[in-house]
């Protein structure tokens, strides 16, 4: 690891692409140079439209994220008929709310209960339901989570502050094919009077991956 850091450090100081500097004035790293070179090459060759890159980035950085999934969960909490549809055909029920697209074409909803706790991983790469949760956080894509979620799920949950009683069954879903999973966390007690909108604000990304429960602030 330290060898690698030195390697990158050295390369960054070679200035082998002229005087290119990052916005804060320091030399560009190897990976920054590679991305920049690839983009200019693909644009010059007519393989990529730079304006399309901007639209893609804006879509996933500002338009698609876990608030979408939170709206699905809140709807399922307040509308038993919707929840039934969601558990029977998640792709259709989620599309009904307008959340369709890449990495969410074929959805499965998993309901967490007092007796069954579902959590989701992709041990082989980092498959994740983009239309409802956005792009995955670094920890979800990291070796510790990908290696341990299947062999030590309760240990992983403990690191997220979730200690499950022994009588709760833990089901880990390894998304190895094109199905994408959305966990429907338990609706917490004390939320009976809340509106769908208020409920959606309580639902966290982690609770929809299945590494946390939904909490009510101040309780």
């Amino acid at each position, binding site marked *: 690891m330290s060898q690698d850091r030195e390697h990158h450090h050295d390369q960054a100081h070679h200035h082998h692409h002229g005087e290119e500097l990052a916005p804060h004035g320091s030399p560009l790293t190897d*990976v*920054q140079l*590679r*991305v*920049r*070179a*690839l*983009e*200019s*090459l*693909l644009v*010059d*060759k*007519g*393989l*990529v*439209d730079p*304006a*399309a*890159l901007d*639209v*893609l980035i804006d879509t*996933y*950085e500002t338009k698609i994220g876990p608030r979408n999934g939170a709206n699905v969960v809140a709807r399922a909490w307040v509308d038993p008929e919707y929840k039934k549809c969601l558990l029977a055909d998640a792709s259709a029920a989620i*599309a009904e709310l307008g959340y369709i*697209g*890449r990495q969410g*074409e*074929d959805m*499965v909803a998993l309901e967490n209960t007092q007796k069954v706790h579902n959590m989701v*991983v992709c*041990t*082989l*790469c*980092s498959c994740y339901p983009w239309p409802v949760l956005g*792009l995955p956080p*670094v920890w979800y894509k*990291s*070796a*510790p989570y*990908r*290696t341990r979620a*299947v*062999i030590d*799920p*309760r240990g992983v949950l403990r*690191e*997220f502050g979730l200690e499950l009683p022994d*009588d709760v*069954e*833990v*089901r*880990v*879903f*390894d998304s*190895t*094919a*094109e*199905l994408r999973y959305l966990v429907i966390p338990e609706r917490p007690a004390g939320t009976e009077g809340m509106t769908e909108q208020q409920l959606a604000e309580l639902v966290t990304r*982690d609770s929809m991956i299945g590494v946390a429960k939904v909490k009510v602030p101040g309780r």
Partner: protein
Amino acid sequence: MNGVHDMGGMHGMGPVEAESNEPVFHHDWERRAFALTLAAGFGRWNIDMSRASRERMPPADYLRASYYEKWLWGTEHLLVELGHITPEELASGKASGRARDAQILRAADVPAGLKNRRAARMDDHLAAARFAVGDRVRTKNLNPIGHMRLPRYARDKRGIVDRDHGVFIFPDAHSAGGKKIPQRCYSVRFEGGELWGPDAGPRDAVYIDLFDDYLEHG
């Protein structure tokens, strides 16, 4: 392939470290690498080819690389392997001519392109299912050099079919040349003890999405 990407069950990687209020991207180059991968691949290669390409990254580099570094590596290599750019162009960053293939993802087409549904489903094909929900199955002991989606930790293991997901593109063939072979995909439940032995939690189970070719009656 028995690559380092197939990491379920490995030890020694340390604790899971979550970052609070994590941004979608940590660096501008991550934004560009992400978008370049989607845009360059649009209509030129499929997702199984992308995954297979990243899996070919040398194992020590793979473990050291961040997520978008893996994407960048996979994209660079696919572009060269499929003949869209030459190794010389990649090394120099200078185009030696325009691409012959005129297809390009335009900004105006991005929203529609992202909403293309049912990309991997092939439900019109191969109606018969070899396994029914509740069937006992055993995964095969397969070790192909090419791309496969049966994790190493779940080979030659017994489980029970929990759901029939329907028919999808078989990723193994799709990753090698893009041939669309319809194949049924099931969610199979494996008890923790079957996968990990007596130290596994007695109430832990793993569900894995597996294709017909990975399974036999057991």
